[in-house]
């Protein structure tokens, strides 16, 4: 069909100032650099990166939706599908595993009644296994990915983790 300009969507409507601030960090002929910050923005807005979000970001940055969408698959912190409100991402990489992270992850899952990669029945928590998070001296540890960003919880026990779960459930339940 005939070409048309970028569609104004939710991102531009709600976060115009922030988008402008993001774009200002890069040379004006290098707008493409803003794609990763904008993907975070979209993910926090929609809970995951939807096809509509790809098209909106592509429009803002004069990219093809493929150039934007391709990144979602490559980088593990972007998600193209919805999951629980909160992703609990436990590091079970070698240094953490040496300090009991695998057992920790298994027990957390048992407590939640799910397997790794699954979401609790109430849709609040998705438990995932991830690679090294640079928290090796404070293992077991996990990071929390929610609609605000990413936060670390370190020096964990199954008890402290379950206490946190209870808190999260109160907030999102």
């Amino acid at each position: 069909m005939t070409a048309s300009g970028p569609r104004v969507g939710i991102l531009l409507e709600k976060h115009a100032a922030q988008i402008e601030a993001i774009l200002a960090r890069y040379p004006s002929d290098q707008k493409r650099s803003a794609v990763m910050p904008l993907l975070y923005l979209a993910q926090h807005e929609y809970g995951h990166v939807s096809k509509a979000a790809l098209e909106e970001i592509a429009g803002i940055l004069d990219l093809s939706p493929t150039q934007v969408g391709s990144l979602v698959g490559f980088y593990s912190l972007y998600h193209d599908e919805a999951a629980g409100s909160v992703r609990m991402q436990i590091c079970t990489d070698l240094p953490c595993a040496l300090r009991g992270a695998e057992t920790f992850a298994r027990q957390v899952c048992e407590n939640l009644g799910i397997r790794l990669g699954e979401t609790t029945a109430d849709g609040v928590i998705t438990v995932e296994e991830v690679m090294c998070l640079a928290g090796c001296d404070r293992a077991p540890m996990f990071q929390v990915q929610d609609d605000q960003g990413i936060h670390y919880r370190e020096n964990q026990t199954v008890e402290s983790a379950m206490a946190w779960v209870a808190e999260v459930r109160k907030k999102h339940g």
Partner: protein
Amino acid sequence: MADHILLRHRDIPDLDRLEVYQRHGGFETLRRTIAEKSPQDVIDIVKASGLRGRGGAGFPTGVKWGFLTPDVFPRYVVVNADESEPGTFKDREIMERNPFQLLEGIALCAYAARASTAYVYCRGEFWDLAHELEVRIAEARQKNLLGPKIFGSDFSLEVYVHLGAGAYICGEETALLESMEGKLGQPRLRPPFPAAKGLFGRPTVVNNVETLTNLPPILERGAEWYRSIGTKDSAGPKVFSLSGHVAQPGNYELPLGTTFRTLIFDHGGGVAGGRKIKAILPAGASAPILPATDEVLDTPMDYESVPKVGSMLGSASVIVMDDTVDVAWVALKTTRFFKHESCGKCTPCREGTFWMLRVLERLHSGQDGEGQVDGLYAVARGIEGKCLCPLGEFSIMPVTSGVERFRADFVAHEGDGR
């Protein structure tokens, strides 16, 4: 070491507050450098100091700056804060607790490189610290320690934080630049090197967080002082990330050339539960595994000595494993890591890490008959020397060294062919 040079926050409380940092001489070196030294002076001093890149490669920092294509502007400084090597958590502590020393180091680097924009490429998982760093950049900017016309000079510098999104490969400097440009984080061909064609095709310095944090003390106290720390070819202090089966895991700032034994026993409190050390990975997952012999334990941790016992210093992320550890399991863990993090750009790494993992998984399931260990070894050797970037070459190191040095651990998994 009585006084920390890099982890100064351990000696001075609240060093992450700008007024505290300034009260202890912070940004004074930058002020004096801009006033008294030319960019070339700074490069010469850093060359003379013997500072080598702390990201893992150990390339002389001043020499790297010297490769910048002359007279081409703008140039960029990119700070590699993508700290993702298993067992490495030093840059994180510096950024969280001693951020202004890093920022001052960035400014010194930019001054030397004659760059007016710097980006801190921070791994996406460091979301919270990245946002705090942005606040600190704003504070420093407000006080004219960064931003336009620093200290009233002609030197201006904007520092921005750029978040990655979960990809180990972006620690490789050309993949990092691709990622910064909004593309898949896949390594570029070299040459051209970033100093010639880096970010946005411009001459670019890419340095690790710890490397840059060394600059304020070097410029403050001189190259000679710096060379007095460490060994002849490995000068200066190093932050060692100690993890695994030790009583007190954590970061330890020690002179390069400190032995494994000193780090593990004197500082790390030895092996938890009093067990024996079996093996050491001295550079995260990216170097050959060492048996914890006396020879190894007494080896100085510097860029020259560790290779002599068959491994590498790399990022100096020392993972300690006691005698309960099965090295075949370690190989499974590291291979799973590399298979997960392989960018897929080149064939040997993409297919080879996948294949090694399949063999290792089968080995651990005890399904297979004899010969699997040799098969694994052959696959790893097939990858060797063929990859586009170091990731694929690293991926085989725990496997080949593991089979060579702990063969029994692997063979024990060979079942009877079900």
